[in-house]
């Protein structure tokens, strides 16, 4: 069965600091990978997704993620965070052709001004 691990449950950063959130998955086949963001009181929104090609994926709001197949990882990065990035971030994985996403437990990011 697929599973997703997000090891950082809470992250606190100051504005302008760099961000990296870890995501590891367990599945031996071809996977599709996603990062979603949930701002306080709102629904989930897609930040970026990887299906194939360049393993460095750029998303909205300056976020990017790198797929490292050998490490089963898809870490999310942003060079300089803003207060408005305060939110919960979810990694999700789906094996190719599979019908549903499996989500990680989420990482709560707090950016202090």
């Amino acid at each position, binding site marked *: 069965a697929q599973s997703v691990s997000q090891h950082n449950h809470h992250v606190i950063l100051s504005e302008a600091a760099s961000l990296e959130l870890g995501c590891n998955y367990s599945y031996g086949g071809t996977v599709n990978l996603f990062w979603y963001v949930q701002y306080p009181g709102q629904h989930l*929104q897609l930040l970026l997704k990887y299906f194939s090609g360049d393993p460095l994926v750029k998303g909205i709001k300056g976020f990017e993620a790198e797929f490292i197949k050998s490490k089963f990882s898809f870490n999310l990065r942003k060079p300089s965070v803003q207060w408005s990035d305060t939110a919960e971030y979810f990694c999700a994985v789906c*094996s190719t052709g*599979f*019908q*549903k996403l499996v989500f990680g437990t989420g990482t709560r990011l707090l950016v202090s001004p």
Partner: protein
Amino acid sequence: NAGVTQTPKFRVLKTGQSMTLLCAQDMNHEYMYWYRQDPGMGLRLIHYSVGEGTTAKGEVPDGYNVSRLKKQNFLLGLESAAPSQTSVYFCASSTHPGGHSGNTIYFGEGSWLTVV
């Protein structure tokens, strides 16, 4: 995200009561999902549907039933609510299966359910 609408947004139930959450999407999506979100556990799939008239179990289906009588609606029912079902429920829809390269999943705004 006006494409996926959930009702009600907030509800308090007594143990043993029943209720139905309604999810409606106006994007003609084939695939619809119900997730629950609990602190420290992320989103867990309850049930999903791959088209009108079909439903399937997800990770945590016990205590819930679903129906997809119309393509645009996906109903989640609690026949006898329990405190363990206190959660935030999210409906979602997509044009393709989760693993399809063209897929994007659209989420509703959530329904907060408290069972006392």
